[in-house]
């Protein structure tokens, strides 16, 4: 019973605040202040959520280390790496390290390098996968995909001898691809609208959780 009452109140609260927020977003709405405050509140909650997430991440890996679960070594590395970075940033913010951006150095030297390298490997996989696209079966879908890919790539290349593909490539990118993207975006917009309406009407599944 209490659970149901709580759920009902929660739903009413969410619906009410949602309507207020929506009302405040209208131009000249007197509820703009309340709406802005609510949005700011959401931002703060989001920031806190990130903080909680980081703490949870560290705690989970710490437990794995303490329990000796498989892969505890990696958890240990993660835990100490995060801890070190946090400490360095704290020290940096405290001004103890003048003119030395340790966090920036770590970010650019480690994070950016690693992620860029991993991203660079993607091209190899993509090319290899595309080359083996029709290895087992040749069908019209795969053939169309492959031909389109080749035309777009060739058209994108600035090779004078292959300039004839530029127009085709441009057309593919601006017409079919753009049309598909528009359709995708329209679908996303409709879905977002529907989700919003469901939330405002109390029909969102999250209410039942």
């Amino acid at each position, binding site marked *: 019973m209490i659970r149901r009452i709580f759920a009902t109140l929660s739903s009413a609260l969410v619906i009410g605040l949602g309507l207020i927020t929506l009302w405040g977003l209208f131009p000249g709405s007197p509820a703009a202040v309340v709406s802005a405050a609510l949005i700011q509140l959401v931002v703060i909650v989001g920031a806190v959520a990130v903080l909680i997430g980081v703490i949870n991440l560290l705690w989970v890996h710490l437990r794995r280390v303490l329990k000796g679960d498989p892969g505890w070594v990696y958890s240990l590395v993660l835990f100490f790496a995060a801890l070190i970075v946090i400490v360095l940033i704290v020290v940096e913010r405290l001004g103890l390290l003048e003119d030395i951006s340790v966090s920036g150095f770590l970010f650019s030297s480690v994070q950016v390098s690693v992620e860029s390298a*991993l991203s660079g490997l993607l091209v190899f996989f993509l090319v290899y996968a595309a080359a083996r696209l*029709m290895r087992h079966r*040749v069908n019209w879908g795969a053939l169309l995909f492959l031909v389109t890919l080749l035309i777009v790539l060739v058209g994108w290349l600035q090779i004078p001898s292959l300039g004839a593909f530029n127009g085709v490539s441009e057309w593919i990118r*601006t017409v079919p691809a*753009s049309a598909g*993207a528009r359709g995708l975006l329209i679908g996303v917009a409709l879905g977002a609208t529907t989700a919003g309406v469901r939330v405002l009407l109390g029909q969102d599944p999250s209410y039942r959780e």
Partner: protein
Amino acid sequence: MTDDRQTPQGDQLPDWLKGRIHEQPGETPARPEPPGPSPADLPDQDELDFLRDVGGVPPGGVREESSSRLPGAAVDDADLWARDDTVEEPEAITLRGMTGELPWLDDVVHDKAPAAQEPADDDIGGIPAGLFEDEPSGFEDAALPADSGRLRGLTGALPWLDDQSPGEEQPPEDAGEMPEPDWLDQAPTPPSFDEDDEELAVPELEPEPSAEEAEDLPDWLDQADEAFEEPEAQPGEELPDWLDSMGALDDEDIEAALEPGEAVPDWLAASDEPESEEAPDEQPDEEPVASEAAAESVPDWLSEADELEEEPADFDFEEEEEPVLEEAAAAPDWLDAEAVDLPDEILHEDEEEELTYDEWQEQQEEAVREPSEEELLADEVPDWFDAIEEPGEAGPVPAEAAPVDEGEPEFVPDWFLGLEEQDTSEAPDWFSKIEFSADAMTAQPVIPEAPAEPVQPAEVPAAAEQEAPDWLTDIEEPAPAAEAPAVPADEVPDWFADMAGEPPAVEAPVAPAAPAEEVPDWMAEIEETPPPTGEPPVVPAAPAEEVPDWMAEIEEAPPPVVEPTTEPIATGADLEPGEAPDWLDDLAPDLAGAPPEEVLKPDDILEGGEDFMSVIDVELAEDGLLARRAQEAELLAAAGADFDLDELLVDSDVPLEEEEVEIEGAEEIPDWLAAARPVEGEEGVSAVNIARRRDEIPLDELTDRLQTLRERTREARDAEPKEMAVERSSAAEVLPGAGDSLSAIALFEEPGGRQVMLDVTLDKAQESRVSTLASLLGLDALSEAAVDEDGQPIPVDEAREAARIREAAQRARARSRRKPGRILVSLLLALAVVLPFFVDLSLLVDLPEAVLRPEVHGTIDVEIQNLSPGDMVLVGFEYGPTVAGELDPLAEVLLTHILLRGAKPVVVSTNPAGVLHAREVLARLAEDEFLLAHIGHPANAPLTMPEDYVILPYLPGGVVGLRSLTATSVDVNALDRGIFAVDLEGNPTGLDFRLLQMAFPLALTIAETGEDVRLWVEQVHEAVDIPIGAAVTGAAEPIARPYFDSGQLIGLLAGYRDAYIYDTVLLAALPPVRSLPEDGRVRPRNPFAGGDSAGLVPSEDGDVPAATPVPVQLAQGLMTNTPMPSLTPSPTWTPSPMPSATESPTETPVPSDQDLTATALASGTPSVAPSATPREFITATPVPEDGEVIEATPTPTRVFNGELLEPDRTYRDERWYSTMLGALVATALIGLGGIVNIVQWIRRRQDQ
């Protein structure tokens, strides 16, 4: 022959015909109909369907069979029907009980006359319960109606028979005037009984079905009607395949195609009989003229006896007996067990259309007379029957053929068809006198008089009279006294007269209502229906060796719930002990001699149903019926009949109650499924319960084949894993018993897991996959090695095989690691990407055209160029390090342009890594000397935050965070500035703006995905109407392009190419610049050559501008030759050693510490130590370490001619070439791979 359907008396009409009368409004009077498959046979057909389902109908068809194997069949009939008289109605009870709802059967039963006089009707209308046993015969494979009939029978969904329910008003007083047994009426093949009577044409009683009727009839019935009733109809149009094929075949074809055991419904056989070509020829000889005077009044059923009497010398008992069996053609398979070949009539079906009714009648009767096989069956005639036969040359049956008046063509009145829609006033008198009330219908029919045609009692031996079986008496009992009383009573044999004149054995016993709590559901449903008035099915107590299948079922099955009987049953108890035949006394002495109230009363049946059935079981067991049943089952098994696995799989040890499953929402279960559900208690009469009762068959009675199958099934079931039990139970909830039959796959558990060892069926695709896997694992070689030279499999050493498999798997994995294709692709790509950095590929690949086309790139450059110094640009840094290689150039060039304009970028990001990466990018720009030089910053005066740019902290909340930007700024009275309050490092930004659109004339988003662009457009552009430009990756361009095309984005830059173009244009617009002295800080003029509104315009003057006279503010302090340890002089400038010197504009500063000739004041102590990167002029007076005070004369201003700066665009072109070459190689590899794959695929197709 006494064709009942030819009798003009309505009370002699079969029930089914009466039902049709009710259901056919406005039906025209009947006209001569073609043979058998008329609606009159429909009930028979339906019953026969059930019979076929259980193998009761022999392949040759009932009709043919009845004529061919008369003796044996007669014995069975006699026994069973005799039991019909002595036992109550277990058949109908069982029948209902099996399905729980058999409305058509109810209707048939209700329509019938009192059952005591209609024993055979039980066999026809009330199909015994045992007939529902799924013992297939060859018939069911060919006959669609068989299936449909079975289904309908099981489900009770026979709406066409619902209309036969005698709920309509019928003369109650004529209840006893319906002595004609329904089984006679429903006899599928009427003609053969009275061969002399040409007018005994069935068709006249079979009105042609109207269109309405056809609609009401089931499909199979429609087909039958079309095929057989109306010669004009196109048989093949809507007929089932088997029927269509039959109709299309010639006689020879049919003869060749149809084997004796092949399934042909009896009604079809009946229909074909008149088509016999030989019939017309033989008829005059064999058929006596049926126009005797007595025939006018004698009912058809009595014509049998008359005929026998009139033909004492030539009487062929077998021939005469045929009609009896013909009428019993719809009886269970025990009548048809020894089926013979199809009658020739079937073979002449195509001639039927050309025949008149008379011709057809002649043919039909002629065909019936085929005596070819009768003699073969003579030995099967039981003794008691022989006793009848011997004197019978005269025939025990008063069969003087005189039933039909030839001059009565319309013996079927108008009201015959569609009577149910007609006013009953149109019905004849007899009809109006019929009482259809429950009491009347269930009352023992009173035969007021003997049959009209006098029977020659002298010709009938007394023994025969006394021993006349009840089935025979039943044949005569139903003689419609009211309509056909032509036979004088004195001519009736004694035994028959006694029967006829005998009062009803039971006085209209309406089924006593059972207590509500005792009434099962199915019975309650029946009770809700109109009171049944049909005859009670009777369980015959036939000899064990002659017991039919359905009887065997009764015997095997536990006593079913006894349905409240609705009518009395004429049993042996009704007869005087002396009247009952001896054989009947021998078979069932207790029943025959027992008082009626002890054995036969419905109350007893209801109250002691089990006892009743147990009595039957005992009798059957004593008579060896079980053995007979086992023999029949063996025969069926030998014939390839299918058996229900449920029968074998259901564990008989488990009580039925425990197996019952409560199904939720049972009320929602369809009727057909509900009918199949198990019913509580062993008395449950659902199909499932009945099937389960079969387990009670002793194992020793099962045939070897069944026992073998049973054992194998048990083994398979026992071998199932426990996990499968869950699935079975779930399946059993839906279809109880089905789960057991689904457990055919035996799973064997091994240490490494379970494997499906048996019953694995692979399709082609699966086999292909298995083959592929085996090839990959090298198992094909192993399999080959597992066969010796002789091709015999070598015994497998599991351990050795496992080791070999492991080795093969390891080899396969090793092969998988070595993918030369992947390595080749990687090497080629790497080479293509790296090569441009070492080789000039300018001749191979062109650089992109440095033109920003508004239709492609938009007006981002123009908007930025229009910025004024001090303007702020909101820049969304929505990407991280992963795409930094592609987006960093774009971000740098855009930020450079913004900074060149003197504007302040305010960077915000909803990506935590994006914030950090923005700081990385801006840090590089902040120290870019070229940029600094253009904006008037000396190299040692990098851009700082928040003076020159602002990086806001991470903006959490995603889309809400973006919205918070606008929410904060839109409200002029916002409590705080929100995210704009502090920068990334927590320092106050100093940004104080009220309206976002007023503070930011431009917004840019550098996004990794199209989703980021969408969010910015939706939340920022639409909220505050800020012009937004986007810089995205090449992958996100298609998603972002629609926003640009719609005008929501002022510009769109994608990928490294647009970055290259933009940067080229930007650099072209910038004039050359020289470095600035570190000690000066000025804001130069507009670095761009063109106007602000013109965007980026390449500089017209490519000459290096002269050194800008920069007022150099020298340090007031002394500059020593020995720099301070912490002082790091900029190498780009050299302070003038002369205090008042003015450098020449062309003078090149010497970036050397040794050139530092600044004059330091000898006196004074420097108070401030210069920093590494002096931002301010040193005003302190350095004090040398030795204490000497160096005095210098500072120069207030000087002209600094800095170094001509070049933008740091290292490897910019190389990167472009690398990108192009990499893309080119990738395109080539992909295209080559595609071509190779296509060729290989074509080869594979060709090989296949």
